[in-house]
């Protein structure tokens, strides 16, 4: 295990809605080590993206802490936060919406450096832009093109170059490949892994695509309705899933094998319970085949069942 770079402590984010409090992120504890990747998986609406945005203080938190190199970033004032932002960046899901359509490729990449005044000299700035374009594999002839003239993969490369512009230590990747087609997904993933090796970056990789997360992560956190239900090293989680929800998730991966034909799948029944004013106890209880009375009595904590493998489930208490 490496040294932790980013840690969350009982992080909560509630949204006020007319119907009540929406528990988007509810008491999440995760750790991201230096130079490693934490994969965050879960179905739509489970609070993955919200978690990423709260981590970067793009959204205000409700309670809890985010520690970056041991310091709580929620206590930082505006000026300190500006310094902080150079250390952590974000790559977005939609490469169409995440780039300003009125700016050229070079302007988009130069923008963070202009804002943070890390590079002020014009010549240096344009050199740095070409350097970044080279790093992410964009040909120099695209300097003056606009995002709409490029394809999805190249746009995502612009997004990555922009995130790298400030030399961050930590990047939140909010489903960076789910809008791309498979062959380009692989290119972008490989690029990101190469960059991690070269620059020692740490990623929080948000996705709902399990094959992608297995490929890139050192550790995986499984989220369900705002809570982290299981956390384990990548291989361990795929080999030995413990939480019933994780099992069901992994079971839903199609097997590209003839022997899998006709095999019955254990699918989860029912619908996701509403994240607005949830009842105490396990959020998954209503759909869980192993649910008992114990599950709805009290809130569950993550237990270390095996070294490095945490599960929040009454079956393992």
């Amino acid at each position, binding site marked *: 295990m490496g040294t932790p770079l980013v840690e969350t402590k009982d992080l909560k984010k509630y949204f006020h809605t007319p119907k009540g409090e929406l528990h988007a992120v509810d008491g999440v504890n995760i750790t991201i080590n230096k130079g490693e990747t934490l994969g965050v998986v879960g179905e739509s609406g489970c609070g993955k993206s919200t978690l990423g945005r709260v981590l970067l203080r793009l959204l205000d938190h409700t309670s809890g802490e985010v520690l970056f190199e041991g310091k709580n970033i929620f206590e930082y004032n505006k000026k300190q936060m500006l310094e902080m932002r150079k250390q952590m*960046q974000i790559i*977005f899901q939609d490469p169409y919406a*995440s780039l300003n*359509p009125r700016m050229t490729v070079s302007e988009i990449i130069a923008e963070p450096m202009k*804002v943070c005044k890390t590079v002020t000299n014009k010549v240096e700035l344009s050199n740095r832009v070409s350097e970044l374009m080279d790093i992410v594999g964009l040909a120099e002839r695209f*300097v003056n093109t*606009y995002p709409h003239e490029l394809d999805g993969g190249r746009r995502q490369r612009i997004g990555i170059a*922009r995130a790298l512009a400030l030399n961050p230590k930590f990047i939140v990747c909010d489903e960076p490949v789910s809008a791309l087609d498979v062959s380009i997904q692989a290119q972008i993933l490989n690029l990101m892994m190469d960059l991690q090796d070269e620059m020692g970056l740490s990623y929080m990789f948000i996705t709902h695509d399990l094959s992608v997360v297995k490929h890139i992560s050192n550790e995986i956190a499984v989220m369900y309705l705002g809570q982290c239900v299981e956390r384990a090293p990548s291989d361990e989680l795929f080999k030995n899933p413990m939480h019933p929800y994780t099992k069901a998730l992994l079971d839903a991966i199609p097997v590209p094998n003839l022997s899998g034909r006709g095999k019955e799948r254990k699918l989860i029944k029912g619908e996701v319970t509403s994240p607005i004013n949830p009842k105490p106890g396990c959020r998954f209880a209503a759909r869980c085949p192993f649910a008992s009375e114990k599950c709805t009595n009290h809130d569950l904590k993550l237990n270390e069942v095996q070294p490095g493998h945490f599960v929040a489930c009454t079956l393992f208490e």
Partner: protein
Amino acid sequence: MAKKEKKAQVVDQTHIKKRSQLKSVWLRFKKNKLAMVGLVMFILVVLMALTADIFFNYEEQALAQHLTEKNQGPSLEHIMGTDQYGRDMFVRVVFGSRISLVVGICTVAIGLTIGAIIGASAGYYGGKIDNILMRIMDIFLAIPSMLLAVVIVAALGNGLFNLILAMGIARIPRFARIVRSSIISLKDQEFIEAAKACGTRDRRIILKHILPNALGPIIVEATLAMAMSILTVASLSFVGLGITPPTPEWGSMLSTGKAQMRYYPHLVIMPGIAIVYTVMAINLIGDGLRDALDPRLKN
């Protein structure tokens, strides 16, 4: 074949060298023939307004009455004819351009600047600020702009400056509404979030990321407003609150000529042409500018 190759080479060179935003906007604007026509037309009017004193004598030719020559049709001596006091129409149209241009540009400048600031803050911050600002704008909108201008001029007194101020204020709510709605549709886009993630200040986000993307409708409204302003001055002059005779101004020339339109149509036609010409030039420029500022439109 050789020509094609050359072209490809040129494109390649320009690509590698970084091009500034202004320059690429100008390159796109230049390609639009109609817009260039509008620009030339507009520059001509401006030159006319600036150089009028060199060719004509304001007191002698634009103001002094020569009743023996009144109501003449266009001739070699007076290419636009003379008005009901025997003054040369062409000279008056030339001098009138000064007031019309100043009024048109300044009212839009006032309305757009204040309206954009109000609309941008309302749209960007939302919530209470939005509610308060927009309800104030609603109050302004409820008063007919003409009436509002009349009230302001009546309160502050007659004069070109007060007139411009009055009409500028009357334009604010429309600009505020347009800017606000564009900003609301843009502010939740991911590229705004990306800008926030690297610590961009609100002001820079609005000016650099949001407004450039909202320019289309704003420019259309601005060009329309400019044309409307020139005509509103005419109406205000007509009720005696705008430019007072004998100062030459297109709107007031139009309204004084109206009485004798049946017998001497050139009294109305000449200033009318001047207004149409200027408004058209401005509209063509506005359209061209809107297209040139949007890199997504290709022709």
